[in-house]
């Protein structure tokens, strides 16, 4: 909590995006999270990503469940739609919203508790359904809102603030998503916006479910020696396997980094391109098996694999595609098209008699 609201004054040299808006226009309410919380940095990165992509704030929907992470949606784009669901049930609410209005940009924000404990089943099925949404897990390894118990993502051997070590195996959302067939899987760090922002942008433009696991340290309960999700530990053990730049469709693509070798470009559904600036030797971000192996290998060495780890550029299994729904969002259909009338109903019912 801060004592005052953010003053409305802007810096005169603040740039404007294609809509004539500054980043200040993408802000939300004042954060009530602890000072220094990683989640606030993720919020700032999201503001930058939405602003850089020229997304009109009123054309986005912010979805969340319960937890510190789920409060984040209140802190950016105050003009956007939103839904704060029951604990762990954000994925199905988003699936429903997306089914009804596919014209909005969906951003779901969850945490390691909301997604990997109470909402684990929901997450799995949203991945299977390939709902078009950016799914951000703000992962800090603890239940911060209930004073710092280990969460399902806490590593074996990492210690709580009072010293006891965790003994249960963690659930790694990246490995989970890879095994479930997710079409866009990334891991990043709240303290590294240079890496996080392009990944968020690519995820927002992905045609399907884009999962980003963001290590977002809890300054109050998990930023001490012995934590494997602290600012310091993450900085010291981060291995950026696949650094990506997002090149939107309308920008000309330059070749300046081509000569460095190992440059991979992946064309997305709408013609935008994700260009991998640097990747670990022999790493192929479009090979699911290789991605799994690499991430698992890092975990075994105590390293944190970050970057845009896997993506299927031209994914054709997105929910609407798979279900052959109409192109027009349901909210825009006329009543007669949405509800064909009693005669049609009777005809349909007749088929079952």
């Amino acid at each position: 909590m801060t004592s005052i609201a953010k003053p409305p004054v802007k810096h005169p040299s603040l740039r404007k995006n294609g809509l004539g808006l500054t980043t200040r226009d993408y802000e939300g309410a004042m954060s009530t999270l602890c000072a220094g919380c990683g989640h606030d940095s993720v919020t700032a990165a999201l503001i930058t990503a939405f602003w850089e992509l020229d997304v009109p704030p009123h054309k986005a929907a912010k979805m969340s469940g319960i937890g510190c992470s789920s409060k984040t949606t209140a802190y950016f784009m105050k003009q956007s739609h939103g839904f704060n669901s029951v604990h762990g049930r954000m994925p199905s609410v988003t699936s429903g919203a997306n089914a009804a209005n596919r014209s909005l940009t969906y951003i779901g924000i969850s945490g390691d508790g909301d997604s990997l404990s109470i909402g684990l089943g929901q997450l799995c099925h949203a991945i299977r359904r390939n709902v078009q949404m950016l799914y951000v897990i703000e992962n800090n390894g603890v239940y911060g809102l209930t004073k710092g118990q280990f969460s399902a993502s806490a590593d074996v051997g990492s210690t709580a603030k009072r010293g006891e070590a965790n003994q249960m195996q963690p659930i790694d959302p990246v490995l989970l998503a890879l095994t479930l067939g997710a079409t866009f899987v990334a891991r990043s760090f709240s303290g590294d916006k240079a890496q996080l922002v392009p990944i968020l942008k690519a995820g927002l433009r992905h045609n399907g479910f884009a999962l980003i696991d963001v290590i977002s340290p809890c300054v109050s309960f998990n930023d001490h020696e012995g934590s494997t999700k602290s600012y310091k530990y993450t900085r010291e053990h981060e291995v950026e396997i696949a650094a990506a730049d997002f090149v939107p469709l309308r920008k000309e693509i330059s070749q300046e980094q081509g000569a460095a070798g190992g440059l991979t470009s992946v064309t997305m559904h709408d013609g935008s391109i994700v260009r991998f600036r640097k990747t670990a030797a022999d790493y192929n971000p479009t090979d699911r098996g290789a991605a799994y192996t690499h991430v698992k290998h890092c975990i075994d060495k105590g390293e944190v694999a970050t970057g845009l780890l896997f993506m299927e550029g031209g994914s054709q299994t997105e929910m609407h595609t798979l279900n052959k729904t109409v192109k027009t969002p349901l909210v825009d259909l006329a009543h007669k098209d949405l509800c064909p009338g009693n005669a049609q109903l009777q005809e349909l019912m007749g088929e079952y008699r």
Partner: protein
Amino acid sequence: MSTPTNVSDPRHYHKVVDCQWGCPAHTNVPEYLRLIANGKYAESYLLNRESNVFPGILGRTCDRPCEPACRRGRVDGKPVAICRLKRVAADLKGDITEFLPKPPSLENGKRVALIGCGPSSLTVANDLRPLGYSVTILEKRDQSGGLMRWNIPAFRLPPQVLDEEINAILDTGVELKYNSAVTSMKALLAEGYDAVFVGSGAPKGKELDVPGRHEGNSNDVIHIGIEWLGGVHFGHIEKIEEKVLIIGVGNTAMDCCRTAKRLGAKDVKVIARRGRKHFKASPWELEDAEEELIDIVENHAPKRFVYEKGKLVGMEFERLEWTEKDGKGTSKVLETLTIPCDSVILAIGQDNAFEWVERDIGIEFDTKWDMPVVDKATHQSSLKNVFFGGDAAWGPANIIWAVEHGHQAAISIHQYCEKLPVTDRPAYGMNLVSAKVGMHAWSYSNDYNTSPRQKMTHEALVERFKSVHTEVELGFTPEQTAREVERCLNCDIETHFTDTLCIECDACVDICPTNCLTITTDGAEDDLRTRLIAPALNMTQDIYVSAALPQTKRVMVKDEDMCLHCGLCAERCPTAAWDMRKFELVVPYAFAKSEAVAV
């Protein structure tokens, strides 16, 4: 790589306090505004008095270099009304007699003569008398205050304000000799003073040598501005003709035109040689004149005075068109025209007059301007016991500069009399104390107040034209004062960074409303300025660069330009790497040499 900013040098934080940095006397503006906000008018007045000696006078007449410098002007276009708030403190201070300087308990046996009883001499007296100096002021007229009294009309500066503040100095036992024009420096020096200070101003109004200057009734109707204002002040002049032209557009011209209005002139025009952006008058004085229905005529160069039957009937001008190139203007004459008038006041500048200083007594004069050679820092002339200050030193400036000259000259005189080198200037110091008083509570009001600048209420036109003695500005109401002080951004509550504590969580960067902060890889300053979240394009404002941060070796960079001092960076910082600290510049005076305080 850039060198980390050295914030233990008082200059870095001092420069952040734009008003204080811009004030020649370095008045602690934010602190006195906070005192006003807390209703501590006497304390506010005394804090002012320490640096600028004449808060009541300056609160009405200062050239206010602080206001164009004020950060609030960059933030919402209008600076804080610093000057008029100073007047509020002076108006409401109550009885402060017991806090004013007292006659010294011990005399030190040194005798100092001050020539002229204007602001610079009075400041020297103010600073030296408490140390036990025997101070004698030699004044050629029979009133004190110099140009503050007889050139600034009473409707802007009532005489009782002058008397009160001047008497506060004289009452410490300063000897003031009226009607004592110094006609020979040589004779004065022979009287054996330990030091002599020349604060005699620039008392000679400039002439306009065009045809007809001395013809017909010119002696009665063509006046030199400052002499005419003096004539009005001393009661020798009580009326003026109906159609008056003022030549020149400085602040004296503004005083002349407004005074003319009060002495019966119906049609007053101020004639300027160039366009408005070249006017020397302060914008607010121009505004006040125009409010009194005075015409300001641009781009007219005077050519000659026109008479009919020995009576002035007009003045001929060339109307000019100016073209600017490389900062230099060249003009083309468009036409010649005559503007009818029956009186002209010349207000085109002032000159010094040193005919009473013999040129063979060791005081060196430059050959070009025939001005004494005076050291810029020490105010010492080539004759070691003679010092100059105010307009007498380097030509016309303003009251607040005269006050600062007085402070510096007093330090020099004291050093000189103590047989210490005058070039050994006592250092500026600083205090820096955390403003944190609770979890998220600060010792100042950190919230940004969106109020617009408050407008000064003026006496109705009909009323003010009745007499030169009716004060025009009525002062701020308590409500206006309360709003205006809250517009101050408290720039002296500095953002202080401790690099070793930073965990690079970005919380400060993300919360800063004006995007002042960036954590980035180190580089040269020019390069860093372009790489900030909001590029630092205002080169007059410094950037702060930290040492390498513990985790990534990047640096914290702060562009000071648009910082609102709202303290949100410090409130969001989990490790207190950012703190809000109250900066106090410790200014050395002859009577209280500062000792730099370690941070």
